[in-house]
Every structure is written in structure tokens, then in C-alpha cells.
């Protein structure tokens, strides 16, 4: 391409091509969904098992969360270094998950005030918002479905004793993060092979 003058038809065609060139860029490889999906799944199931074993250290598995946070930061830094373009979707996702993180922190820090029985249902409401909106923006139905599942499980878990809320949480991350994460990864690999 050079700086030659073009005909009007060529102008339209060119605009169309360039719109297409930015549209086919798929940046979502599902890594974050898989990371957090697996970590929360392992942590919640471990706590459930430890409670059944009447362990006093049943919350120990949640120490995986800071590990996840460190991996997330390293991964995001690496991603932003290799990214040569920032779309409006990228920007929006940054704000959405940032807001999710802040809200999650407030809820988890207020466990004493909210009561242990209300904490996980609140967490699931937040999962629902972030997952459903992400799915809508990415036009990726499995995530939207996952968001709805989080909301349903949130309502269900309000009527469950604490240890069974852990199973609801495990089910939620499986449906909302782990499964869509693998589907996103598959789609991403397919797109890379096709050269999109």
C-alpha cells in the first residue's frame, strides 16, 4: 500500500477491509478463566473435604488465591507487552474486571459484617455480573450462560449451609469459567491456525 490517490469505490472497499482487519482480531485465549476457574474449583472442593474431615485448617486451600494473583499480574504484563493494539473491548474489559476485583475485595473483607452464610452468595452475584457482561461483549454465549448459572447458584446457596455453599461455588466456577475457558482456548487456537 502506498500514498496513491484512489477512486471512490476503492475508498469504500478499503474502509471495509480495514474494519474487517480490526474485527477479526481475537485476543481472548481463555487463560484467565482457566486459571481462576481451576484455582477456585480446587480451593472450594478442598475446603469442603477438610470440613468433612473436621479439620481446623479447612480454609488453608484459599492460600492459592495470592498465587493466582501473582500469576495474573505477570501474565497481564506479558500480554500488554506483546499487544500492538488496544481495542475498545480491551479497554472495557479492563474496567469491568477491575471493578469486579474491587467489589470482590469489599465483600470478602466484610465477611464478619455480612455473616459467613451471606458471603458466598454475594460472591456468586459478583461472578454473575462480570461473567455475563464479558460474554455479552465478546458475543460468547457459554460465558453468558455461565453468568446466569452464577446468579441461579447464588439464590440456591442462600438456602444452603456453609459447606454446601462451597459445592455451589465449585459448580459455578466449573460452568462459568472452566468450561468457557476451554471453549475460548479452542476458538483462539483455531483462529490462530486460520491466521485471523
Amino acid at each position, binding site marked *: 500500500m*502506498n500514498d496513491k490517490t484512489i477512486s471512490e469505490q476503492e475508498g469504500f472497499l478499503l474502509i471495509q477491509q*480495514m474494519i474487517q482487519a480490526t474485527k477479526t482480531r481475537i485476543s481472548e485465549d481463555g487463560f484467565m478463566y482457566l486459571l481462576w476457574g481451576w484455582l477456585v474449583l480446587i480451593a472450594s472442593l478442598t475446603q469442603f473435604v477438610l470440613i468433612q474431615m473436621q479439620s481446623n485448617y479447612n480454609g488453608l486451600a484459599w492460600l492459592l488465591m495470592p498465587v493466582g494473583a501473582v500469576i495474573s499480574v505477570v501474565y497481564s504484563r506479558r500480554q500488554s507487552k506483546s499487544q500492538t493494539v488496544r481495542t*475498545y473491548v480491551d479497554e472495557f474489559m479492563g474496567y469491568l474486571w477491575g471493578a469486579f476485583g474491587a467489589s470482590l475485595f469489599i465483600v470478602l473483607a466484610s465477611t464478619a459484617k455480612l455473616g459467613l452464610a451471606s458471603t458466598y452468595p454475594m460472591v456468586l452475584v459478583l461472578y454473575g455480573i462480570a461473567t455475563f457482561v464479558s460474554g455479552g461483549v465478546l458475543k460468547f454465549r457459554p460465558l453468558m450462560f455461565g453468568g446466569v448459572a452464577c446468579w441461579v447458584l447464588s439464590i440456591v446457596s442462600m438456602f444452603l449451609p456453609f459447606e454446601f455453599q462451597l459445592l455451589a461455588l465449585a459448580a459455578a466456577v466449573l460452568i462459568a469459567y472452566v468450561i468457557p475457558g476451554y471453549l475460548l482456548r479452542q476458538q483462539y487456537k483455531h483462529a490462530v491456525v486460520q491466521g485471523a
Partner: protein
Amino acid sequence: MPSFRELDPLLHSELRLAVVSLLMNVKEAEFTFLKEKTGATAGNLSVQITKLSDAGYISVKKQFRDNKPLTVCKITAAGVKAFESYVEALKDYLKINRS
């Protein structure tokens, strides 16, 4: 002779129109992204980016990352307006041509 709006000469050029069209769809893009998508040479692209920047259609930020220079381009409000009126003018032109 039917009259139609004059096409902005700054946009009515293959590479400059491509750059502005790409930037219309993203928040910001690095020089390497524009180079890859337009298939232009670095020298030519650089000249066209300077022209667009001088006209106030795009803003150009020069940064460093890992000690390597990095050029980040972003469309301005004036650029969006120019692009929109260019598209309108194109539409007029095609309509008149068809009738």
C-alpha cells in the same frame, strides 16, 4: 455537471485512508500494528502518519518499552469528524454516479 462535496485530499489517498479507518475502530494502535495491517513500508507509513498528525487527525505518542522506541497512534475528534464527512462525501458521489 452535478455538484458534490469535494473529497478531503488528505484522506483520499490509499495509505492515509487505511490508517484512519483502522484507528476509527480501535482505542489506540502501535506503529507495528498499522504496518502489519496496511502492508506498507515503514518509511512510507511514517511519512503518512506525520501528515495525518500535522493535520490534527491523529495524535502520536512516542514512548519507550524495554529501551525500544514505541509509536502509539490514536484518532482525534477532528480525525473522526473528517472521516465521517469523507464517508458522507463518498456516499454523495456514488449516489450521483448511479442516478
